[in-house]
Every structure is written in C-alpha cells, then in structure tokens.
C-alpha cells in the first residue's frame, strides 16, 4: 500500500530526472498556472463586468474603532477597470516568476512567497469586483462567514496533521466531526448546558479515534479501508440515533444550544477584522491556540521530533527507544479529540440542532486542507480559510439581488476546494511531501 500512496512511488521516481537540481522538471508548473489564472482575470473578470458598473467594498462600519476615518467606509471601484489593472499586475508577477525560473535563478523563498501572496490578493480582488459588479460587498460580513465556516475545516485538518505526522492515515475525519457534532448536542441537551456539550464533543469523537487506532494500529488493517468504513459507521450510527431517539424526544436529546460569544473589548471594534477575530465563540480562540501550540509542539519540542520520527522512519525511532505504536495511538486520539471540537462548531458553535449527515463532506475538505497545507498546522489553517472563503462567497453570491453580479453558479464555488486540491496533489502548487511511513503499520521485528 505504501507504494500506492506515497508520491515517490516508482512511477513518479523514475520520471524525476536526476541532475540539474537548480531547475526541477516541474519548474514551469507554478508560473504557467499563475499565468493561466492571470489570463482568466484579464479575459473574464476585466471584460465580463457590465460597462460602467461599479463594485462597492464596504470596509469600516459605523461604531467601529476608526479614529479620524483612517479606514474608509465604502470604497467604490469601477469593476472593469479595477479587474484590468489587477489582472495586468497578476500577469506581470507570473512573467517575472516564469523568467526567473527559466534562467535557473530562483528567488529567495521569502520573496517568492510574497509575490505569490500579492498575486493571490490581486486575483481575488479582481474576482470580487467582477463577481459583485453593480452590488456591494460587505467585507466584514464576508470574512465573518468565512471564519465560521473555516473553523470545523481547520479542526478537522489539524486532526489529520496530528495523526498523519505520526504515520496513520486519517480518512475518518468526517466521522470524527460528525461524532463531535452529535456528542455536543446529545450530552449538551441532556445536561442543559452548551459548556457540557463542549466537553462531550471531543470525548465522543474519541470513540471514532479509538476505533481507528484499534484497527489501524492494533490490528494493522489497511488504514484507508478503516477510515472509509468508519465514516460509513459514523454516518449510520448518528443518523440512526437522529431518526429514533432524537426524533422521539427532541426537547431532551436534540436542543439547539449555543456557546456564548466572547467579545474582547477594544479589539473587537477594529474595522473589518474586529468581529472576525475578536468577537467569536471560545472554539475560534481555541482553534488559534491549537494551531500555535501544535506548530511549536511539532517543530520545536522533543515530543514533536519523536512524532515526526515515528511518521518518517518508525524503525529508527524504535531503535532509539521510542514506543512507535504508543506514539501513534496518542496522536490518533489527540487528533480525534481536536476533530471533535470541530464537530462541536457545527452544532453548539453556531447554535443549531443536530441534523442527519450534517458534516456533509466537510471531513473530506478538511483532508484536502491538510494536504494543501502540506501537513503543517499553519498551512492547514490557511488552506481551511481559503476553502471557507470560497464557501462564504458562494453563500454571499446567492443573496445578491437579481441583475447584479456575474451570475456565477454556486456549484462552481463549492467545487473549487476539490479542484484546487486535485491540482495540489498533482504537484502544480509545489510537491506535497507525505510523511514517509504514512499508512504503513509498524511491527516490531
């Protein structure tokens, strides 16, 4: 199996031309991809907007902490012109990157990343002016929606990072999210408190985590199979209880509870990002804490070194006295608990009752976010934010008045995360390096 999963399977490794390390075979992927995107920006966004249409970006709102009006309230931009300028900027960046890569003089990573980020911002702005031409975008609300949608994805992706860094493939994120959402509502309703639900969610998700660990580590069953089957199991079990126990007595077992929003006094008044970052439930703050904590723990502590050793070369780890399977068990369980928090976001985080299959594929997007984030907590968070932004856009575009906007079908925006991931695993966005022992059970010799 390892050969089928790892990107350095024989099929790939033989095609990797040796020598000339300064210009890998894939040198043109990124510039070409960016150039294609830039051409889309020029061809579609710049020309697609209705003539003379303007797009209004609402930045600051009344009551925001905005001394002297530094941040303007509404910014109206001519849709076509803005997209044209930004598209040209994008094209210029793509050309610069392409030329530098072609003459084998790659930029320092810091500059490269800066350029790509500038490209991304310009492209997205061009897209927004086109998508919302003739209407108003409330950036604060858009970002707020994004944050709400990103939290479960980020928690799920972190769960994946935790277990896959230790070498256990975690397809069961979907099931863990679902169990978390289910446990939060069930136990929370019975106890009558959302806080109890918050505690119950990770514990409930641990059930799936423990099953995954038992079968994948304990009995060395193919890990992808276990994940897929556990997802079926989780969907079946939660739907079963939803259809029987919860339906018979929703007042006792399935009440919509909501964690209180914690507002951080002054910071929450900042324009645009104030509510997004500083007026959220405890789950959002927890997510940031876990991202920071996990990054430090994985890459700066002895524990993290051990986890990564177990995921990369378990035999070497075993030789120096690390208990490989115990490390994996711990990590899978930790991951499940984290995903359970993500599940809690779906129910008690947003104040809705449990619904059948309410994770609706979020576990798989989380998986995608983890891969796109290159098995790094921060990367996973950023990828989750990007995916959630697409989802938030889709929701926002759905509420546009008739006649305004570019009429993008919402399904395409929903599809976007999966397409991006498809390109990512194909190596267009840079090769994703999977932990070497990911998916390989370890048996002591």
């Amino acid at each position, binding site marked *: 199996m390892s050969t*089928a999963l790892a*990107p350095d399977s024989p*099929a790939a490794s033989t095609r990797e031309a040796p020598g000339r390390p300064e210009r890998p075979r894939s040198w043109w992927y990124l510039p070409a991809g960016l150039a294609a995107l830039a051409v889309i920006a020029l061809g579609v966004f710049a020309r697609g907007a209705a003539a003379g249409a303007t797009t209004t970006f609402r930045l600051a709102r009344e009551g925001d902490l905005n001394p002297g009006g530094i941040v303007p309230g509404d910014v109206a931009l001519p849709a076509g012109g803005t997209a044209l300028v930004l598209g040209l900027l994008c094209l210029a960046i793509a050309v610069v990157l392409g030329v530098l890569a072609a003459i084998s003089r790659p930029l320092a990573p810091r500059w490269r990343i800066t350029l790509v980020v500038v490209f991304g911002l310009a492209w997205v702005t061009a897209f927004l002016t086109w998508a919302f031409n003739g209407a108003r975008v409330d950036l604060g609300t858009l970002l707020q929606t994004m944050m709400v949608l990103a939290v479960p994805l980020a928690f799920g992706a972190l769960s994946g990072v935790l277990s896959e860094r230790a070498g256990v493939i975690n397809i069961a994120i979907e099931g863990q999210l679902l169990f978390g959402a289910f446990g939060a509502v069930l136990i929370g309703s019975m106890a009558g408190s959302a806080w109890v639900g918050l505690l119950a969610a990770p514990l409930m998700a641990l059930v799936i985590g423990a099953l995954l660990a038992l079968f994948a580590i304990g009995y060395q*069953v193919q890990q992808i199979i276990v994940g897929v089957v556990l997802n079926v*199991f989780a969907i079946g079990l939660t739907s079963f209880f939803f*259809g029987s126990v919860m339906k018979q007595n929703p007042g006792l077992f399935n009440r919509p509870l909501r964690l209180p929003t914690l507002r951080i006094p002054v910071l929450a008044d900042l324009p645009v990002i104030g509510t997004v970052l500083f007026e959220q439930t405890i789950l959002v703050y927890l997510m940031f804490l876990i991202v920071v904590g996990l990054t430090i723990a994985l890459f700066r502590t002895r524990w993290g070194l051990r986890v990564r050793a177990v995921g990369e070369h378990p035999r070497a780890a075993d030789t120096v006295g690390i208990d490989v399977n115990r490390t994996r068990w711990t990590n899978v369980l930790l991951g499940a608990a984290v995903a359970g928090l993500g599940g809690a976001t779906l129910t008690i985080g947003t104040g809705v009752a449990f619904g059948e299959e309410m994770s609706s594929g979020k576990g798989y997007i989380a998986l995608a976010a983890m891969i796109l984030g290159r098995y790094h907590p921060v990367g996973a968070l950023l990828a989750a934010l990007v995916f959630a932004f697409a989802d938030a856009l889709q929701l926002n575009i759905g509420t546009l008045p008739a006649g305004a906007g570019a009429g993008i079908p919402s399904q395409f925006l929903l599809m976007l995360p999966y397409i991006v991931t498809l390109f990512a695993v*194909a190596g267009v966005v840079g090769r994703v390096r999977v932990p070497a022992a990911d998916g390989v059970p370890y048996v002591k010799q």
Partner: protein
Amino acid sequence: MSARHEGEGQHVAPGTVTETGTDAADTPADTAPAAETAPTASSTAGGGSAPEASGPSVLQRIARGNLLVIVLAFVFAFLVGSILILVSDQAFREAAGYFFARPADTFTAAWQAITEAYAAMFRGAVYDYSGAARVAEDIRERGGSGLYVLGPAFLRGIEPLLETLTVATPLIIASVGIAISFRSGLFNIGGTGQLLAGATAAGYVGFAVSLPPVIHLIAALLAAIVAGGIWGGIAGLLKARFGASEVISTIMLNWIAVYGLAFALTTAAFTGANQAQPTSPAVAGTARLPLLAGDDFRLHAGLVLALAAIVFLWWLMNRSTVGFRFRAVGSNPRAAEVAGIDVGRSAVGVMVVAGALVGLAGATHVLGTEHRLTGDVAGSIGFDAITVALLGRSGPVGILLAGLLFAGLSTGGRYMETSEGVPIDLVQVIQALVVLFIAAPPLVRYLVGLRRIDRPRRPRPSRRAAAYAAEKAETSKGAAA
C-alpha cells in the same frame, strides 16, 4: 485488496489474507509475481489456508478458517444492531424503567423489539411470508384453490427478493469495478464520482437523443462506459504522470462530480422544460433496460449485465494478459517494473477499466431503475460498492454474494423502517461493522476467547487462563495418546 495484502504479508494477520473457498484457486496466481522476485515479502502470504508445518489441531484449523470469522463477524454486527434497536425502542425503554420491579417485562420487550425488527428485515429482503399468506387467504375467500392460490401468493412472496435483485444490480457492477482497482493495488474511493459520471452520460443520451430502440440503449450504455472510464482515467493519469495519490484524487473527483451534476441540473439542457425542478426529464422508453419479471416489478435486464460483469472480473483477473499485468503491479510494483511492465500505463489502464465498470453501474441504475437524473441519483451506491468489494474480498463469487447480501440488507432495512419504525441507518451500521470485523480476524477470535490462536506462546498472567491452558494441554496430550 487481497493482492495488496499479500504483497506486504508480514504485518497482516493470517486470516485477512485468505480468500473465500472459491477464490482459493486464484490465490497462488496472485502471489506468483511477488513470489518470484520478492520471496521474503510473500513468504507469509497464502494465509490461513496453508497449514503450518507443526500441524495445528483440528480446532485450531477451524478457528483459523475464514468461514468462522465471517459467521462470527455477522453475529457480532447483528448483536450490536440489536443493542441499537433496543436503545431506539420506546417500549423497551419504558419497560427497562421499572426493570427491578418486573424484570420479565424488560426481556419480553427486548425480545419483541429485536425479533420483530429482524423479521421485518427478512420479509422486506427475501420472502414476504405474511404478505403471501394474506394474498392466499384473499383468493381462497373468493373461491380460488390450487395453483390459483399458490401462484399469486408466491409472486407476492418473492416480490422483496426481486426488489433485492434490482438493488443489487448496480451495486454488483460497481463493486466489480472497485475490485479490479483494489486487486491492482489502487485504492479507488471514487465510486460515487465515476457512478455519477456514468449515470449522467447515460441519462443524457437517454432523454436528449432519439434513436431506434436497441441502438439507443447501447448508445446510452456506451456513453456511460466512456464517461466513467474518463472520470476514473483522470485519477489514473494523475497518479501515473504526477504520482498523485489516487485516494485523494478520487475523493476530490467524487465531489467535483456531485457539484457538477448539481450544476447541470440547473441548466436547460438537463432539466428540460421545467427548469425550477432539479430533475431531468424521464429517459425515453427506447433507452430503458427491458424489464425481466413483468411490469409489476422493477427487476430489469441490468441483472444480466451484473452477471456478465462478474464473469468479466473472473476472466480479466484470472485469464487475460492485461489482468495479469494489473495484478503484478498490484502485488509488487517494483518487481513488475523490473519485469518490464509499465507501471504508470497500468495505473491508467486499471482506473479506466474500473471507472468504466462503475460508470456502467450508474447507467443500469438510471436506465433500469430510476429513469431520471436527480442530484442524489447515486445515493450511497458508490461507497457501498467499496464495502461490498472488501467484503467479497474482490473475488467474483465473493462480490456476487456480498452484493446480494448488502442489497438485501438495504431493501430489508427500508421495509423495517416503514413497518417497525427502526431507522434504515441501522443497516449502514451493521454493514460497516461486518466489514470491520472481517478485516480484523484476530479481533473476532479475541472476542470469542480464541486468542491463543494468534498468540500461541504468550505467557498467561491470570491464574484462570493458566489453568485453562494446562487443561488444554492435557486434553490434547490425551488426544494424541
């Protein structure tokens, strides 16, 4: 799936490797390529069917055998199912509320809830004996006798069975496709996507094109095969060309297909006149699969295709050169490459063939059963096909049996839901548990106290176990004498 396990035999518990009796024939062939080039890897393969040199006792051989594990897996899965039924049953919970006052009530309620639910499942899946009896009674009252009673009553009775066969049709075809990829070492999780691609293509040809009867049907089926093949081929190509993990890419392609179809069903080309409704017009009569058992039943000629697919699986994997290549790559890619097989091309080929079959399954579902495209036309067939392929150990007979079984569970589950109020999701739980248990024979043996078979020389810490072992040793000594 079996091939993969054999490739890395050391860490797979014996029972997982063995095939069901019918598959035993191809097991040696499966390991052959690996055995030639990597004897260490496959030395432990071959699994439980090969007795150990020391000559295990009869009891051990039975306990190691596959059949016991399969039977026990079902027993445990249904036991868990029973617990779930009890939890959801209000009468039982009420009786349990005064358990200490009248414990008998609790047990009566429990027995009733469980037996009624499972009886309903049987009636809904195989033979509706109470329905048949009602029809017979009815006809007798009106003065009929003999064949006049038995005929209609029997037809009424086997109605669920025919429905089960109808549900099994796409399931079997799709799992044949999945099985081909499993045995070729590729984890094709993309059943849903390939199924949707096939269903969409077949449906579109079915309602948008007008052709003469037989040709129309063939055109629709071919369209599905091509679409499914392309959809699977994308994942294969990404794997061969870029080394992208097929697990991830097929999962992503699933969702792309789901949203793609959802989008298509908002366009005029797919919805026809009524654009507000996200359903397509009905497939033309010329493109429908002919009904096999009269107009009263949904059973259609797709069943023949399903049987053909089973035969195709056997032929492809056991008799053809292409299949040999696929299997060789699945068993040991490195060895296959050394032997001159293009691993990349094989990956594309496998995914195209697998996708084409799963696409065909989508076509039979649309052209035979559903007759129109909707957003969730695939239902859970794509994922169920994976579990069926796993349960059937990717072998022809195994898939046939597992497909029928899963179809029976789901039709029975539907009946159980309407008649007993037990949610159909119970079936999903049972299916998942069966697959999990069968994948881990040591767990099953552990649960029934046959742990010694997996760890024969493990020191026993507890006194009771030590006494048991001593007793065991004595009896076996006695038997030997």
